[in-house]
């Protein structure tokens, strides 16, 4: 049980626990110790990310770590602007993530239209839940119910307006035929001190 300095405002607790459909899953109950499972089959590799408009448009090593290569969906089954939920890089706290076909080319996007991206669901400010906040018109996650931060999913999850201490962690994707795999992450997940220690 983590330490709480002072009783929280019930409105705030409700905001943290998230929209009703999220609260029902029990994954985000503020007062319960989260259960997390160690995943098996971890492999070690280097994720290469192309910085397209860089000076040399070189591939640079982004993360050298031990991320699982996880199957998270099929390209042919994705519908535009309908996020698909999954967990990554494990089943632990704050692993909830979303995969979405934006219908608009995006940084780090895969597929023929480079418009399929995936992001962690937890606000990188104070841990507010972003489930259910996808705005299709603007390709945005947010505003966070806690302090109203919004994130641009077409631009690597950079914040648009608000407080987040860093971009929303982007789940790096690979496409193998029709299969979409999560293969790594950019940015530290809220609540953790190491992405792989959840």
């Amino acid at each position, binding site marked *: 049980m983590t330490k709480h300095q002072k009783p929280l405002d019930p409105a705030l607790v409700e905001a943290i626990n998230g929209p009703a459909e999220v609260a029902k899953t029990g994954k985000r109950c503020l007062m319960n110790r989260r259960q997390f499972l160690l995943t098996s089959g971890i492999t070690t590799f280097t994720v290469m990310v192309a910085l397209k408009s860089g000076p040399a448009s070189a591939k640079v090593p982004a993360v050298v770590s031990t991320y699982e290569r996880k199957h998270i969906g099929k390209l042919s089954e994705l519908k535009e602007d309908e996020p698909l939920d999954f967990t990554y890089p494990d089943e632990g706290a704050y692993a909830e993530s979303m995969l979405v076909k934006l219908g608009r080319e995006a940084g780090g996007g895969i597929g023929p239209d480079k418009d399929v991206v995936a992001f962690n669901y937890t606000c990188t400010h104070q841990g507010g*839940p972003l489930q259910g906040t996808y705005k299709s018109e603007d390709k945005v996650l947010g*505003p966070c119910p806690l302090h109203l931060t919004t994130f641009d999913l077409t631009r690597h999850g950079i*914040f648009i307006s608000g407080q987040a*201490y860093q971009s929303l962690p982007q789940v790096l994707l690979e496409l193998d035929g029709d299969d979409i795999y999560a293969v790594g992450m950019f940015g*530290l997940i809220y609540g953790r*001190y190491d992405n792989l220690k959840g």
Partner: protein
Amino acid sequence: MSTPYYIPETNIPLPPVDADVLSTACDYCIVACGYKIYRWPVKGGKVGGEKAEENAFGVDFPVDPLGPWVAPNQYNVVLHNGEPHHVIIIPDKDTEHVNVLGNSSIRGGALAQKVYNPQTPTRDRLKSPMVRMFGVLMPVTWDFAMEIAAEVGKHVIKKHGENAYCVKTFSYGYMENTYAITKYALNSVNTANFTFHDTPSDVTSTPGFRDAGFDNFGPSYEDWKDAETLLVCGTDPYETKTILFTDWMMPGIYNGQRTIFMVPRKTGGIAWAEKNGGMWLDIQPGTDLLVVNAIARVIVENGWEDSDWIQKWVNNKWESSSGFGQGTRNTPWQWRTTWGKFQTAGFEDWKKWLLSQDEFAPEKAAEIAQIDVQKIYTAAEWMAKPKEDGSRPKTSVMIEKGFYWSNNTGNTQAISALGIIVGAGGRPGQVIGRAGGHQRGGLRGGKYPRNKSPEKLPGRRRRAMDTDRYLMSGHTRFAHVIGNTWIQSMCGSQSLAAKFNELTVQNPHQIHSFDKQEIIDTLKRRVDSGGMVVVNQDIYLVDPIGARYADIVFPAAGWGEDTFTRANGERRIRLYPKFYDAPGEAKPDWWIIAKLATAMGYKGFDWKNSNEVLEEGSRFSRGSRKDFHMVKVVAQREGKTLHEKLAEFGTNGIQGPVLLQDDGTLVGTKRLHDTARKLPVDGPSGANRLGKKLTHFNSQTGKCNIQKSPWSLFSDYWAWLKPKDDELWVTSGRINERWQSGYDDRRRPYIVQRWPENWVEIHPDDAAARGIENGDYVMLYSDRIPVQKDTILGVEGDDFSFTKLMEHGHIELTEAAITAVAIITPAVKKGLLYMDFLHTAQPANALSGRVVDWISGNYNYKMGVGRIRKIGTSPYKTSYRSMSFARRDIA
């Protein structure tokens, strides 16, 4: 991941249980959230673990929402006592005030990125004194640079007079520094050529508040939460002082507060408030006064004013005049009362005037302001219509720069009167004040010598010198610039830069020697020939004031590099301790000033540390809103230093004015003008000072002055300025991500990734008409930027009005142009362009008129016009690494 050098980290080291923990407050905005610094040596390789008993936070990882999570931007490595140390800087989760749940903005949240680390973009911190030799700023010793500055400074004062020595300084850079600087400039040098970073002259920012009797920072943060109706003028606190919004206003709005925002640009906070029952008064620039007075008119026509409050707390005819007409009292307040334009004989007289002004009819005001007239009626109802049970809504009024930098005197007079009639001021949830910009770190070590100012208005009115116009006229021979950009932060900045260039770089007397005496002689020849020497004191080399025009540069130490003291927007005074070594030879400003003053031959600058400066200065805080003198009295009683005593208050601090109670304890002041507060009946004991502002208003009687606010004093300028043909308004403001933190933001990769350069928001209709798309490079330009020149003596009453200045040839029309990246958004009003206020490379102020408010002497920075056209495509249009063109007003 989107800039060549910004790659987000995916892990951070946790602080071990025995890490040093220091309390401090944020370096940036007025709110000054409480922070904790966790520091431990790199040597030994020790880090904390994920279990509560293994780390300094005492929590298990992963942490809960709102927990002590450490984002990679909150971690750095510094030198402490010469040894590398890890530092983690996160909001204080234990603080009981300000950021109560340990919240923080993005700016303060990334404080760790501001500390000097040569492996980060902070590597360009100024590390040694420099003198420009052979056209290049060369590192030299302190003694070498100081002797040159002192010799030339002494020469300037002796030969050209004290007013030839200008000091342009920050007003907020901690009390220890501002005390030393003002003691030097105002007391020792005794120059009238002195002003602060945000104004050409040392004058009040809110003349109407001053006349009415309102302190700028009277309210407590709790009052903004407890208001049932809150009128916010010229700011969205979410976009700037965010924790004031998220931790105080948002809970208020959840509780049913009706929030009204009067500002031409809709932002995230306004959109959210609107969704939760609030209202956006989307006026066009400069028309605030009309809408405020129209709201007041609806209120008095319906008899909704707070009659009991007015009866008790508003000056009547005799009270309004009391204390005046008895010889020359050269105060701004007296000028205005003798002027006849503002003073009234009380509420009924003001009401008669209000109802007689045609432009305050709601329909007329709405037409000029370009808003739906119904909003004026709704605002009046929300602010003043009694409820069904006969009780009044608790109404408060918050103002900030979008408002008081549009029509400085008129707007602040109008809002004071509206505040008075709705009963705002002096009661819980019923207050009026500024939201604030920078923190309050001023402590006066000298009095401004107003009688030495050449600026004379009609009648007996002498006003503080306009340092920009004095420089433009060639009278300033030595410009000592401390912690501000001077040029880009003033209006019509490009013509100002041209004059700096002429007086420094283009002067034939340039240093082509390494010999100290030859350097001194050259600079003396320069000032004697009509040129100017620039000394710049800052933490970074600022372009152009330091990089191009300075002859001598002094490297300053800042936040965390010495122990300092400062107050926030509710007068909360806190200690900001030193926690790491300043880079190189950088020294705190008080030290630099003391060394220079001593070299110039002035006495009284022999402080050994910053505590000694504050202990000397504490008595000058007496009677001010941040009176902390009694803290020193108690410290001495307890055998502690003032800094040690202040440290005991931690991030909670103590709110000024601070009083010492009979039982020996210190008590702060929750709100000023607190009409319910009970003070000791037998008066102050010991060195306590029970100023009028504790329980009454800052006026001659302690009651409010209700004042007129004539549109005609401003309407000639507004009508001349407003967009013609295909011109648009060019106004500017702040954004959350870089506010009160611009000097650091260019060195924070995450912020640079978000905002790589200045930008302009443009309404979709205006963009379509000009073929402009998101991400296009645009040019904003104008050939009619009015620049007021000449220091003149006013004789006739309207000599300083815009019309007369124009007639008499004191206004010059200049050209300017700035580039920006276009962002198309319906969040800005049609006909208006909105830019970030202070980007040093692309300063929005280049297009704002350099004409001061003729009553107060302040600039109306928000008033600019220009044309806009596409010049090409920016790299951000087609790449995804940087910027975002998504709208900011998503709720």
